């Protein structure tokens, strides 16, 4: 029941909000925050109660749902989902707190959209029935569409429709693939009709079947990641989204794609994974370098961070498809880190934007003079994102590169350059915004240093960034059984293909 409670607690929040008066904004905000904090505490309890050495899924719930079709309400977590679950509940309340003052328009709808969004994301990470997974996957889409479309910037309608169409086309192709899997499994397993992940993996599908299914899954997951060349919706969506929307988008929504590859594509379709492995590594390497190069030339602060996400998420895909323990653990940790760091960077951009309503890098300068505490926080997150040893970003990228060199030193060398480029654009950005002396008197008065609630949500992120950087084992220990299980599933069939 614990997982259902975590997933559906936001729905309780929605039920509480519905009868409230829309004018009573602070009550709406506090209720949402309390519900989300409670959910976060529950997920921390889950982290503590989780048995790190056991393999397989824990806290399982399994009851019939669409019984006549053999579909079940099956939830469960392994090390991978537990970390992402925690990240989701953490960033959700942080996102709400970050727009405490910025959003004054239709607060009630805003809070409901975020609660539903949280519900969808949590569901994706714990669903073990592919159909249930799909339902949660699509639930995520609508609140995000509304969040960008209603509370977004000037080109919000273009951005939000582009976001919706990109992801919706990908998802629908995935739906066809899921259903194909349903019948293929029934055909191979004596007519047992199920979409339960734990059972789907026990059957060996022919390569000719795996290839189209892999491509359809790819359409859904690669758009979400987003992998070059399917990333074009991301900068638009980020630039137009409100700060909290960007935080959730970069922090969690992008992880859904990586999670999908790890949970479904690789274990269920091992031969197609090997077949497409070189292609995936190539695309990932391009994404890593391309994202970094494009970040170098951005004029908009938020767009720069958005493109750096393309680069960092490229590392995740790289780590997944090198298919060795270092790569996979690095990829998962990189997802976690990217959620913390890029979430934090978007929050930092939002803090300044809220004060001066400008994100043009050429207009900003000398902020450190007015906001020293902010500058300190921002520096840690920026350096973490660069990959400075001792901070979170380094561990994930290091492990991914370690894994990559074991498979293809060419991909390794090329991807390495992205880290250098990252140092280039992030340090340049920091220097530009914080130190360059500019005629900034006209907004100097607006640049008040961090308020209490801003410190309150940046502090846990800061602590986690340092924790992961200094002692990553706390987090990596969750991953060992899950990762070795994925590797076993992927290589069992790989060996079969070689024979």
């Amino acid at each position, binding site marked *: 029941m614990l997982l259902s409670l975590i997933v559906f607690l936001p729905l309780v929040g929605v039920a509480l909000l519905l009868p409230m008066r829309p004018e009573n904004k602070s009550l709406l905000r506090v209720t949402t925050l309390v519900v989300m904090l409670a959910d976060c505490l529950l997920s921390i309890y889950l982290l503590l109660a989780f048995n790190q050495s056991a393999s397989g899924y824990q806290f399982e719930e399994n009851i019939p*749902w*669409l*019984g*006549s*079709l053999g579909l079940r309400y099956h939830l469960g977590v392994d090390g991978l989902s537990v970390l992402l679950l925690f990240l989701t509940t953490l960033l959700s309340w942080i996102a709400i707190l970050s727009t405490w003052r910025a959003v004054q328009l239709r607060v009630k*709808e805003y809070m409901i959209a975020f609660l539903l969004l949280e519900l969808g994301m949590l569901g994706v990470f714990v669903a073990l029935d592919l*159909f249930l997974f*799909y*339902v949660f996957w*699509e*639930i995520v*889409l*609508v609140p995000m*569409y*509304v969040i960008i*479309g*209603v509370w977004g910037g000037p080109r*919000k*309608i273009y951005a*939000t*429709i582009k976001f*919706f*169409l990109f992801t*919706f*086309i990908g998802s*629908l*192709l995935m*739906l*066809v693939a899921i*259903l*194909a899997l*349903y*019948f293929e499994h029934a055909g191979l397993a004596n007519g047992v*009709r199920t979409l339960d992940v734990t059972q789907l993996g026990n059957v060996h599908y022919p390569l000719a079947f795996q290839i189209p299914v892999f491509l359809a899954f790819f359409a859904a997951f690669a758009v979400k990641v987003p992998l070059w060349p399917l990333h074009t919706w991301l900068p638009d969506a980020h630039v137009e989204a409100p700060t909290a929307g960007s935080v959730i988008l970069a922090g969690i929504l992008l992880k859904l794609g990586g999670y999908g590859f790890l949970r479904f594509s690789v274990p269920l379709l091992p031969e197609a994974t090997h077949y497409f492995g070189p292609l995936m590594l190539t695309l990932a390497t391009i994404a890593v370098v391309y994202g970094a190069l494009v970040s170098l030339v951005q004029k908009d602060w938020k767009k720069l961070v958005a493109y750096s996400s393309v680069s960092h998420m490229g590392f995740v895909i790289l780590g997944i498809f090198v298919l060795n323990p270092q790569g996979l653990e690095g990829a998962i940790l990189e997802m976690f880190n990217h959620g913390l760091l890029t979430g934090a960077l978007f929050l930092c951009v939002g803090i300044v934007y809220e004060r001066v309503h400008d994100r043009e890098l050429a207009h900003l300068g000398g902020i450190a003079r007015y906001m020293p505490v902010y500058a300190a926080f921002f520096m840690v997150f920026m350096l973490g994102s660069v990959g400075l040893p001792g901070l979170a970003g380094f561990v994930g990228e290091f492990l991914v590169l370690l894994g990559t060199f074991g498979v293809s030193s060419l991909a390794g060398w090329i991807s390495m350059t992205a880290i250098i480029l990252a140092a280039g654009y992030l340090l340049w950005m920091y220097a530009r915004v914080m130190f360059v002396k500019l005629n900034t008197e006209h907004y100097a008065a607006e640049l008040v240093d961090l308020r209490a609630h801003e410190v309150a949500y940046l502090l846990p992120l800061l602590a986690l960034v340092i924790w992961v950087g200094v002692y990553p084992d706390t987090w990596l220990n969750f991953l060992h059984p899950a990762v070795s299980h994925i590797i076993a599933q992927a290589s069992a069939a790989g060996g079969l293909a070689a024979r």
Partner: protein
Amino acid sequence: MAVLPEVVVTVLAMLLLLLDAVLPEHRKSGLTWLALLGFVVAGAFNLYQWGSPAQSAYGGMVGADNFTVFFNTLFLATAILVVLMAPAYLRERALPFGEFYSLLSFAVLGMMFTAASTDLISLFVSIELMVIAVYILAGLARREKRSNEASLKYFLLGAFASAILVYGMSWLYGITGQTNLAKIAGVLKATSLDNPLLLMTIALLAVGVGFKVALVPFHAWTPDAYEGAPTPATAFMSVGPKAAAFAALLRIFISAMGPAQPDYSLLFAILAVLTMTLANVVAIQQNNIKRMLAYSSIAHSGYILVGLAAAQPGAGSDQVAGIPALMFYLFVYTFMTLGAFAIVAYVQAGQVTGESFDDYRALGRRAPMTAIAMTLFMLSLTGVPPLAGFFGKAYLILAAVHSGMAWLAVAMAVNSAISAYYYLRVVVVMYMSDTTERVPLYRSPFIHSMLAVASLATFFVGVFADPFLRFAQGATLGF
């Protein structure tokens, strides 16, 4: 009594006609209650028959089994929802209550007998009973030019289609020498199927019924007829007669011509793809919301047809066959489409036209609950989980994949994505654009309760789809 629900509706139709003539003008709104009562009673009798052994009446011309119970439920639910949405609109436009309700009852009667027919002759007569009543409904606003145009276009093309249909039926009779559907199937099973005459028959029947359900390229009447007809009539036309025509399609192509399924499966698959693609692409360009919903309704005919293309007659007990998918989709489609049209009627009731997208500007602020309901219907029509429309589509896609037509499933998926564009436009207008205009919105307990029912159904048939899936599966066991 196999035809008890039909008898109740007949009595209701007569009674409404009679009372309309004798009641004084100011008492006529009471007819709404009478119509509601009649349909609810018929619905109760109908549901009571669920699970009882198949019966037949009128010398084997009509039958009563789970299949008819399913469709009667659909038709009576449609009738009840239309009766609920109509009063506000009718009163505002000074349209006659009594005629609307009695024509509605006659049309529903025709629909019920269409689904119950087990003979070509009764099938044809029932279809005519239904459509003639609907032609008049479309032209009920007789002082409005658009309504006249709608009625005339619908009538001319409908009559033409009926002629082709009856011509096709005569061919079927010519080949088999039978009019009873089951006997036709028996003859077809015994004879060779690669008969060119049979292909001709299939083509004629497909064209005839294709007109009624608005398949491309026989859809040309739909947008004009839907746009011009009074909105509650449009709502009814887009759901009731369409569902009945699909029932007729099942009766003809499954009950009678099931053995020839391999011959027509591909034909319907191609028609389905044509229909949904053209309708979706054209719908994007519409600025009138009724026309947009008309094209959307054509597109949904295309989706529903996938069920027939993927049908496997004889596999009735198989849970993923196309026929239950088709019927489940009709069930889902009824609620979301009626809901959407009810909101059009609601927004229109206070205005002269109220049909353009601009009339929905900032509806999210002007009428929050209505806007939420509309959002629900639009998302369900798009096929976003966990709403009912998603499960309908998923089930159809499931059937298409199962019958080995993955390309059809992909076409349907891509089309859903295209349709997202114009459905979301409504949401965009309601929530993301502003207006200074303050058009007062109409208040009517009827339409609000109707919207409540439709939106709850759209939500719950989605989240708890299983009993409804079983309902559709149980209804097709006879095939």
